[in-house]
Structures are given as structure tokens and as C-alpha cells.
């Protein structure tokens, strides 16, 4: 991938649309493929993890071009290691970074070599955490295992085990937002659907979780491309009150419809739109699904 960037498109953009703006360049401190970001509407800021510099970068919400972040968390006290994902809780002013068998929590205003204010880790947590999202209305932190990456040990943690040496069970885990240390999740959504959940977002007003689900994704690391181009990906919709082996309430974009290697997810509750990106199709799709927001 030759050119990392964050490009902004009009919500109704179509085709080979021109971005309204793009953030890219040396001053941004970006490195290759930005695997996650978060928008904080309360403070109008964009947060981006830096995979190589072990940093969390914060930009103004209206940033454009080759601009420097307004804050960056990095340094030996941060405990950051190849951060791929980030979530922000603008209401309570906290940043969440999943990192294998732990989730690091920082103050939103942290800048420089800041230590996390909480660390969720330990055998009772059940983590692997590949991705994270927050529901500030219900005071929840929600993690996904991103099982495909857990198999590869991408996060630097032990592969397929958590801090206690127990085997990780890929799942969506719902914690109290203030969970700290060896905290048990409040609820765990398990089963063949939830185990392949990846990037997520929430619609707090209705307690809905939207998650990209990527069954059988191999990552293409060791040459196995069987199933790589199958139409088996989709967006799964769960409730924050779901628990156990629960199928998603809705699936969007598949399976067996369109998505081959779904990656990012965003929702606009006002227009009832779900947006999802697909790496293999190198495209972004917008689905109008008012039913999923009820």
C-alpha cells in the first residue's frame, strides 16, 4: 500500500469521488496501513494509532493536508506496542487501546510519555482483545478478539492464550467501562458468529453493536489463499444485552452477497446508514438499513 491517508468523503459520495479533504504526509507521523481510528464528536478530534512508533496520535477534527497531530501519546511509560486499534470516549474523556491480552486506558488529554490510568488484563478477563469500542451511555467497554489476528500473534501477546495461560476463546466481551485489572466481563457473546468479529462501533442510544465479521480469514500470511475471495464477510448486529451463543440480529452486506474482506465499519444513526470498507474490493459501501437501528 503505497499511500497511507485519512480521506474524508461526503456521506453520499459515489464512484471515484474526490475526497473533500485528506490527511497525509510527513508531519502527520502516519505509517503504513492505519488499522483503526476514532472520531470524538464531543471534542471534534480524530485519533489514530501509530503501528510503528507505538503512539496514539490526535488530530483536530477539521485537519487536512500535511499537518501535525495536536497531541501524541508515546514513550516507555505508555506500554504501547504495535497499537492497531483505538476507541475514544469523549463523554468521560478516555482513550482505549486493545493490545492482545490487555486493554490500556489513557486520559484523553494525555500527551507525551503518559502511563495508562487503567489496564484491563489477567486470566479472568478472557482477553485477547483485537478491537475495542465504547458505549458511554451504558458505561460499557466492548472488545472483539479479532481471532484471525490472534492466530498470528500480531499483537505481541502470547498466541491464543491470555495472561493466565488459558486458551483465548474468541468472542465479543462486554465489560464495565471502568473495568480495571483482572476484571471479568459482564457478558460474553460467543459462537461461530461473534468469534470472527473485528472492527466494531456502537449506537449507544439503542444499545446496538455493529461489528465487521470475517469468517475464515487467513490473513494470507502463509500462502493459503483458499477462501480468501469468498463472499463470506458481513456486518453483524448485536444488542449490548446479548449473551452466550447468539446469532446477530441482522447481517448486512452478506454473507453470500458482496463483501469478501470487510474491514472498517461506521454508522450514521440519523440517516440509518451503515458504511463498511472491503480490502479486496478496495471500496467503501453504504447500506441503508433503518431496521438495524431500532
Amino acid at each position, binding site marked *: 500500500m503505497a499511500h497511507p491517508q485519512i480521506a474524508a468523503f461526503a*456521506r453520499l459520495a459515489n464512484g471515484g469521488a474526490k475526497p473533500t479533504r485528506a490527511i497525509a504526509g510527513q508531519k502527520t507521523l502516519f505509517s503504513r496501513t492505519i488499522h483503526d481510528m476514532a472520531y470524538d464528536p464531543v471534542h471534534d478530534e480524530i485519533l489514530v494509532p501509530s503501528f510503528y512508533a*507505538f503512539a496514539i496520535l490526535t488530530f483536530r477534527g477539521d485537519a487536512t493536508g500535511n499537518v501535525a497531530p495536536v497531541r501524541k501519546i508515546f514513550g516507555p511509560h505508555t506500554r504501547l506496542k504495535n497499537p492497531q486499534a483505538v476507541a475514544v470516549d469523549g463523554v468521560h474523556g478516555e482513550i482505549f487501546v486493545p493490545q492482545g491480552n490487555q486493554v490500556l486506558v489513557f486520559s484523553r488529554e494525555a500527551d507525551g510519555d503518559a502511563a495508562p490510568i487503567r489496564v484491563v488484563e489477567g486470566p479472568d478477563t478472557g482477553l485477547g482483545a483485537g478491537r475495542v469500542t465504547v458505549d*458511554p451511555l451504558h458505561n460499557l467497554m466492548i472488545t472483539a478478539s479479532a481471532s484471525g489476528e490472534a492466530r498470528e500473534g500480531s499483537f505481541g501477546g502470547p498466541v491464543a492464550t491470555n495472561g493466565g495461560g488459558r486458551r483465548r476463546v474468541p468472542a465479543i466481551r462486554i465489560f464495565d467501562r471502568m473495568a480495571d485489572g483482572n476484571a471479568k466481563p459482564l457478558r460474553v457473546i460467543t459462537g461461530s458468529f461473534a468469534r470472527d468479529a473485528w472492527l466494531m462501533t456502537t449506537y449507544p442510544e439503542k444499545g446496538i453493536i455493529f461489528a465487521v465479521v470475517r469468517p475464515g480469514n487467513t490473513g494470507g500470511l502463509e500462502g493459503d489463499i483458499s477462501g480468501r475471495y469468498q463472499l463470506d464477510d458481513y456486518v453483524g448486529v448485536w444488542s449490548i444485552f446479548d449473551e452466550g451463543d447468539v446469532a446477530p440480529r441482522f447481517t448486512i452486506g452478506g454473507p453470500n452477497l458482496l463483501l469478501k474482506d470487510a474491514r472498517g465499519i*461506521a*454508522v450514521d444513526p440519523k440517516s440509518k446508514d451503515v458504511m463498511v470498507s472491503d480490502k479486496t474490493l478496495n471500496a467503501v459501501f453504504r447500506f441503508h438499513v433503518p431496521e438495524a437501528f431500532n
Partner: protein
Amino acid sequence: MAHVIRAWRTLRAIRFLVLTAVLATTTHVIVSWSAGAVQNGAVRQTTVIGGERLVSVEPLAEDGELCVPEPVGVDRQLIASLVPQQSGSAGVATSSTPSRPSEALRSEVAKRKPAGTIRDPRNAFASLVVDPTRNEVVFAEENNFSVLVYDRLENTPPRAALSEPKRIIQGENTYLEFACGVYVDPPTGDVYVINNDTLNWMTVWDRNARGNVKPTRKLHTPMATFGIAADEENQELLLTVQDDHAVVTFKKNAKELEAPVRLLQGPKTRMADPHGIAVDPKTGLIYVTNWGTVNERQAGGPPRFGHALWPIGRNNNIPGSGRFEPPSITVYRKDASGDVAPLRVIQGPKTGLDWPTSIAVHPDRGEVFVANDTADTVTVYRTTDNGDVAPMRVLKGPKSMIKNPTGVALDLVNNELWVANFGSHSATVYPVDAAGDPVPKRVIRSGRPEEPAPMLGNPHTMAYDSKRDELLVSN
């Protein structure tokens, strides 16, 4: 009958007067209490109320839910803004499990087609190499996962939409995804292509390959290889590895799971997110461009993939060791191995480096050409430069048509400089000594000049910016 009516009216009037008196007294007591007539043991002046009167009373439901009153003066827009990520309406939490939809509705939603699609249908040139022996230019193309071959002298007419390539390698059998580096073997014309961060294979094709074909052979590589260069004297291929801040060297004919023959990696190398690589056959030196983000890792553990010379991987990274360095060009002997310091480093504010993505060396001119993605420039240095030096020439400007250059190549036979412009569906050709804002000698376009190039490449995470009604998409 009339006295009955009078009596009823009189009784009604009396009832009304009594009720009014009782209500007035009750209201006065309530208002006095709520106004804090007694606070901390001190008697306070009660507030005198005007003409308010109780109009009606409705009983509370015995077992119904109590509505929580909304605080006076609440700003619903403010509440909405406090709902993170996306909400456009008031943030009232739900407290129970919603009912599940019917199977018919689930099925209908699962089959629903998208209402909109953002996708650039045009080819986007990420990297290129010139084959002067066969008069061809070969592109690694990212938008549609392809390798494109054009005649070297192709020149898209100004009014034409685009130029069609002579050959295209593309499809699910090809092991091509975000191809970012390409090399052509001079004697055979075989085409070598490396993917970046989604498929860890270098693919090799016979020069006449086309369509959705399997590669003639392929080689397992470390994850996130970016640049490729050949040491023709030793028949070796050198690859930069972004993830591991390293250069790995393979025999040119290596295939499948063969091991590298050399590894250059470690903090002394000062490599930091290395991208482009070029070999100077005259001096035996290699030049590596670095974007600047880096971390540290410690050796240990079993060899990855059983290869002692495989780069130390990210699992050995030291938490908190990441840092930001300015972009640079680091120079080594081509046979450098292990953790060795560069012979020279071009780095600093005078250099004009800005995401230096691709590099080429002209051995006879003693010049190094660098494509700077976000500066929209090609900067030229002396091969002997060191430290914070300004480029000897800069190509930049609207006439040059250089836009987000991610590939640069030299045709040493015809003395031409080629640039792949990822940001404008084009490749442009200049005399090798061009400077300033030169008009290209030739242009190969894969789209009309006015067509936008959204530069989507491995679109990954997204977020909805509710303030601007925009969708944020990261590569």
C-alpha cells in the same frame, strides 16, 4: 322542581368555595416548603405566588412506569453531542433487550444491496520499472490489483480518456494485491512483483504472461515488503521490510520457502519504516529511503519460519520503544549484514524529503532520485551526499504533472526519468537532467486528467464525522 335546582346550584357553589379554599391553603404550604422556608434551622421568607391555580389532578397509575422528567433548560443538541461516534439524537440509554427481528426481515436485510459505493475504477500506478531491452514499461498497480505493461513510447493523446496497456496480469489466481514494487530481469524479461502488507509473496512471471494466471514461481517474503532492487553482479534481490525496519536479500532464483541469504536489521542501521531501495552497481552501495517511524526489538526465540536470517519480528518488540525520526536516505555496502551503521545518512530540513517512497540511482551521473509522495516532488542528490544537504535539483510544479509520486525509475539507455503519479492516474517521462517545473516528454494516463484520484488503497478503518456529515476512511 325549581327549588331543587336552586338547592343543587347553592350546594355546588358551596362545594366550589370550600374546594378553592382548601387548594389555596395546600398550594401555599407546598410553595413555602419548596421555596425553602426552613433551611438549616433558619426561617426564610416565603415567596409570594401570584395567580397560579391548580387546574386539575390526575391520579398516578398504580403499577405504571414513572417517566423521568427532563431537566429544565436541557439542550437536546448538547446531549446528542455527548453520544459518541454517531448519534444524531438525544442520548437516552435503553435498558432492555430488544426483540429479535423475524427471519423474513433478517433475510431481506442480508440481501439488501448497497445504496452507494465509493470506488475508483481507474488503474493507479504505484511503482514502475523500464525495460529498455524490450521497449516496455511495467507498472505495479494498486487500485485493481494488477501488473500493467505498456510500450515504452506510449503517449496518451490529450483528448484520449486513457491508454490501454499491452498486457495485464490480474485476477484471483495471481497472488497480486497491493503490489508496490516491480523489477524486470534484463536477460529474460521476467517480471518480479512484491505485495506490501496483505500477501507475503513475491511473484515471478514470464514476460508474456497475461490475464488471471498463476505466477511462474513465487517466494515467501517477510510481511510488509515495499521496495525491490537487484544486484545483477551477484544475482540477488534486495527487499525492504517496513514492519521489521530491515533489508532482506534472496537469491534471484529463490522460490517458495527458501531462506534469505542476508539480513540487515538493527538499531545501528538507523532504518525507520524503510520504503525504496536502489543499488549502485558502480560503487557497490545500496540506498534506502526511510519515512521515520521506528521501534526497538530484542533478539531471541526460535528462528521465524526456521530461517536464521529472517528478520526479528514484531513479537520481540519492546513496549514503549517507538519513536519518530525525520525522513532519511541511509547508505550501506550492498553486502552489509547484521546490525551495522550506515556509511552515510541524508537527513534534515534542507533535504526536502517528505514521505520519500521510491528511489533510483544513476551510476554514471552519480545521482540519486527520490519520489516524495506528499511533497509532489522528485528530489535529486549526489550519490556522495551526506547529512543535511539540499537537493541539487527538484522537479515540482503544475507543468510537471507530478502528483503524489510513489514510484521513480531511470532508463539508463535512453536517459529518461520516469515517475509514477499515484495521485493522478498517470506516469510522466522527463529528460534525466530535468529540473524545476518541466513539461513531461510523454504521459501515460489511466484516466482523464480531470478525474479525481481518491487514492483508496487497502481502505481499512472508518469513522463517521457527524459534525461535517463526512465519512472518514483510512488507508
